[in-house]
């Protein structure tokens, strides 16, 4: 807890799985790993945790090269893709395992464990054995168990899989403070996880890192095929004033999960699909009318992605080919971008 979070340098090859990757995670930073099935995400986590032996290269955590360091000495906790709860221990004892392994007294460890269980919303299942839990419940207990290890580096392999939609936001919120002061690698298939929990994103395809960058960069201007399929969001940063994010642009929206304190840093997120392009600002319910200039038109099958700049902020809209023709869209044209406030989710930025 008290040691400052160390930085991670990863440069290793796992030849028989054809995974050859270089990655850096700064101290305290959370890096999201995105990529299709079989891309090598779990393999990377396995190498870092000391469970998969790289054929060449290795991993350095802070000043420590981890080659030859056994898993339990790495101060790295791994939440694997399967929950793998210890079948002979109750939920609370599963979570108390790491505190007890660190030397905490049984009572203290169980108390901490109960706190963690409460944070992931399954406090009432503390005494259950793993085989008495549903799939999602087991997944949550596994998350609590990994968090309770309070490691220097946290590796989370799809922590939100199997969770119901009502729980995921709550869990995301529980994770945020935990990840804030801890170096973390987070494997996810969900852009929202990346957006809300990660500082930077690395996209892995077929065993290679095809793109890295800050979450905003990658999600708003994806260069890799995979990222483009799942991201391409508009992001506007600023401070929350109670109804809008105010920065270079003012964008009204609704806080996504938690209540935001006015004045706090926030980012407004909305998809290009939700952006309408008008010649003139119309009268109606949409709260956001942003004057912008078209910079580029990019065909996307039967649609076009309209790239614009509004007060220096790049914003995209996605419209049909018919709309392009009707509005005569072309680079240099001044337009009004209309976005409904209910389509804009606002997230606090720590």
């Amino acid at each position, binding site marked *: 807890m008290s040691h400052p979070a160390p930085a991670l340098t990863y440069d290793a090859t796992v030849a028989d799985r054809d995974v050859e990757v270089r990655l850096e995670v700064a101290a305290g930073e959370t890096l999201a790993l995105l990529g299709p099935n079989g891309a090598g995400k779990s393999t990377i986590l396995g190498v870092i*945790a*000391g*469970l998969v032996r790289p054929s060449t290269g290795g991993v350095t955590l802070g000043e420590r090269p981890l080659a030859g360091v*056994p*898993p*339990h*000495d790495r*101060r*790295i*906790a*791994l939440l*694997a893709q399967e929950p*793998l709860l*210890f*079948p*002979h*221990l109750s939920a609370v004892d599963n979570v108390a*395992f*790491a505190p*007890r*392994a*660190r030397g905490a007294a049984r009572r203290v460890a169980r108390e901490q464990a109960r706190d963690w269980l409460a944070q992931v919303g399954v406090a009432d299942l503390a005494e259950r054995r793993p085989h008495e839990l549903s799939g999602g419940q087991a997944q949550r207990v596994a998350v609590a*168990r*990994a968090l309770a*290890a309070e*490691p220097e580096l946290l590796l989370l392999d799809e922590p939100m899989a199997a969770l119901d939609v009502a729980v995921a936001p709550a869990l995301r919120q529980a994770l945020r403070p935990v990840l804030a002061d801890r170096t973390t690698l987070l494997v996810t298939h969900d852009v929202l996880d990346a957006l809300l929990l990660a500082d930077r994103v690395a996209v892995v395809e077929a065993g290679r890192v095809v793109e890295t960058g800050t979450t905003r960069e990658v999600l708003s201007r994806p260069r890799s095929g995979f990222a483009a399929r799942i991201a391409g969001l508009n992001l506007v940063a600023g401070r929350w004033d109670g109804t809008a994010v105010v920065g270079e642009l003012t964008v009204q929206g609704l806080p996504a999960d938690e209540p935001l304190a006015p004045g706090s840093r926030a980012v407004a997120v909305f998809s290009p699909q939700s952006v309408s392009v008008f010649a003139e600002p119309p009268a109606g319910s949409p709260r956001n009318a942003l004057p912008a200039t078209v910079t580029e038109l990019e065909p996307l099958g039967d649609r076009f992605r309209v790239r614009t700049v509004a007060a220096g902020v790049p914003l995209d809209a996605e419209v049909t080919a018919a709309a392009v023709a009707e509005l005569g869209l072309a680079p240099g044209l001044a337009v009004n971008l209309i976005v409904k406030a209910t389509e804009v989710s606002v997230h606090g930025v720590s």
Partner: protein
Amino acid sequence: MTTALPRWLYIPALLGAAFVLLPLVAMVTRVDWVAFPALVTSPSARDALWLSLRTSTASTLLCVLLGVPMATVLARTRFRGQALVRALVLLPLVLPPVVGGIALLAAFGRRGMLGATLEVLGLEIAFTTAAVVLAQAFVALPFLVVSVEGALRTAGRRYEVVAATLGAAPTTVFRRVTLPLVLPGLLSGTVLAFARSLGEFGATITFAGSLPGTTTTLPIQIYLERVTDPDAAVALSLVLVVVALIVIGTARHGRGAL
């Protein structure tokens, strides 16, 4: 969760059960029930039973203390010659116990390899109660090693890996994950080792001889009685059977409660 078994499976299963049970039943029918109480409470019988229980307990303990680490090393590490070591460790299973006794004498007897060393240390092992324990442990150890190694292999390493990533040092992993997970296998291995110790005869008589109260265990007593008093032999066999049933039953019960 339930799935049905193939029906035909019950036929060989019943045949097998009959094959084992029939001789036991037949033996029981031969017991002279009138004389039974006197036969099994004679001082020599009581001495032998008591000695058997003490030595079997001691040898089982020895087996657990040595066998669990051996099984763990065999199941969880790889080293050159591992296959040979494993085969050698299992050898006492195949060795006729009498040969085992000869081998023990060759090692620990007065004229054995370590005989001189032990004599200097003032330790005489052969033909003492300690020899009984060693003989029993020698033949029973492979049972424990096989059971525990099998359980370790079937349980796999996944949970141990998880425990390690949670920061548990090897000893903690061993104590809090490995052992609890293989407990059923360990328990049945312990029962097997105890049972084998209790029934051990050939190695004991060769290595420890037969001195009433010191090395005459129940099986040796039965062997001796067989000549002079077959009724007593059958009666004592029954006692052995009952003790074994109690041990096995208790262990299974404990296991069920896990």
